[in-house]
């Protein structure tokens, strides 16, 4: 649906994008991550045709954004970092203006009403935008992106500045929209990206630092995974017994969590399930198992590892 090839952008002498290449297939929710100034918003602005690239090519639905801007723009609904709202208009006036601006040919009243109900702005439909709360302004921004049912939605930090309740509501809405739209979403809230997106691109200094599925990025050790095990028993002997179990490649005693109970970080080889053997070994020695959980690397850890 979206093809980005060797995208470069310079602001004066500063090179913000240094050859980004990626493609977004139809119907996925893609998370865009990066530190401030990494080039996320610039990339989004180039895809939507707001900015021009210094070099490279962007096509949306097969239309080159530079050469066939009108066709490409018709396929995109864009919510910039700051919603582009006219404060002196009511929500109704604004949405009707956007409807005309995008040259939509659907049943105007029905279409706008449907989107307003879906996003939850119908209760403020007649109100002046200047008088709305930040959450509602953000929602109105999302509604304008949805007008015309564009197949591609580009949302730049849609939950920025919202309270936790509003954030959850917008997150649920984006998950819902992701079912029948291709969505590119940027956010600083990594847990949000982890929850909503199927695939994540991490940008660092204008280049792609990682482009993978969310599952793989949150489990970067892939070949193996860690277990955190709490066992009541002598630390040295327990560790030696653990290392004898087939499938365990490493075991390290981390700390004493309770009197006599030690916590171990256990690295398990790919596809190995050590739980049964672990239980048998511990029960043979009479060492009660006090806790067992898998330890996956969070997206925060992956993000920091890749961007620092």
């Amino acid at each position: 649906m979206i093809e980005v090839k060797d995208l470069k952008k310079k602001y004066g002498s500063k090179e913000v994008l240094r050859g980004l290449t990626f493609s977004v297939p139809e119907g996925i929710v893609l998370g865009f991550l990066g530190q401030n100034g990494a080039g996320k918003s610039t990339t989004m602005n180039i895809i939507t045709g707001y900015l021009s690239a210094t070099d490279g090519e962007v096509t949306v639905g097969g239309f080159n954004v530079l050469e066939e801007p009108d066709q490409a723009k018709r396929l995109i609904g864009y919510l910039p970092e700051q919603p582009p709202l006219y404060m002196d208009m009511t929500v109704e006036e604004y949405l009707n203006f956007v409807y005309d601006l995008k040259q939509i040919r659907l049943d105007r009243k029905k279409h706008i009403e449907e989107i307003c109900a879906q996003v939850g702005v119908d209760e403020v439909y007649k109100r002046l935008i200047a008088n709305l709360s930040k959450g509602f302004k953000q929602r109105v921004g999302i509604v304008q992106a949805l007008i015309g049912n564009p197949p591609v939605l580009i949302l730049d930090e849609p939950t920025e500045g919202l309270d936790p309740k509003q954030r959850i509501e917008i997150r649920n809405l984006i998950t819902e929209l992701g079912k029948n739209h291709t969505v590119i979403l940027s956010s600083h809230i990594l847990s949000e990206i982890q929850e909503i997106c199927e695939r994540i691109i991490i940008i660092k200094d204008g280049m792609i630092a990682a482009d993978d599925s969310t599952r793989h990025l949150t489990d970067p050790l892939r070949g193996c995974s860690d277990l955190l095990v709490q066992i009541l028993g002598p630390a040295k002997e327990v560790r030696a017994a653990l290392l004898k179990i087939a499938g365990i490649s490493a075991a390290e005693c981390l700390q004493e969590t309770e009197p006599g109970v030690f916590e171990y970080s256990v690295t398990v080889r790919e596809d190995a399930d050590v739980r049964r053997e672990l239980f048998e070994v511990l029960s043979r020695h009479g060492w009660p198992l006090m806790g067992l959980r898998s330890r996956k690397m969070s997206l925060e850890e992956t993000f920091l590892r890749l961007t620092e």
Partner: protein
Amino acid sequence: MLVIAKKDFRQYFTSPVGYVCVAVVLALYGFFYYEVISTRSSGYIPGIYSSMLVWCMMIIPILTMRTFNEEEKNRTDQLLLTSPVSIPGIVTGKFAAAALVFTIMTLGSLLPCFFISAFGSPPWALIIGNVIASLAYGFAMIAIGLFVSSMTSSQIIAAIITFAVSMMLILIDHIPGGNTLLNKAAGWISFRARYDSFAQGRFSICDLAFFISVIAIFLFLTVRRIESRRWR
């Protein structure tokens, strides 16, 4: 283009700007008409438009000062520039809205004429010549004002520069120095000389083409200026 024009025209009247500008201009026209009626001679009516020129020079910068920089400041330019409307469409839409407000002001000035015509015979040819001259001058200044607004992020600076340019274009043919090349060039770009020609009832294709060229050039420059932002 039409959707932008409608939006901008509406915005002139959702803020006090449109009402204040129209009211001030019509009040001034009313004052000058009162003076003419006091002289009991409708022959002085064309002179009203000449006197109003300096007031229009002040009002037009107020109409145009926020056209582009306000959009940029509020980031609503992102909505316009990512929609399937071309940049020339956006620029001409904004021009049309400001031109329509100016037309309302100028045509509104004809109302006293209709009342006077019930009691006398105003020189309609001269009056219409003056109205056309005012419109041509106003539209050209609006195009210049739009260009200035696209150049600066400050509304005040945009208004001051537009006013300064309009002053310069009116006064440029008063440069002393005889028949030098500079004087000839000044005469060629002077708005006053072209305006006077219309105002005296002489319809000149050349002068009309001059004003249309100024409008086209500055709208083109505004389009190029907006496009250039994307490449910065």
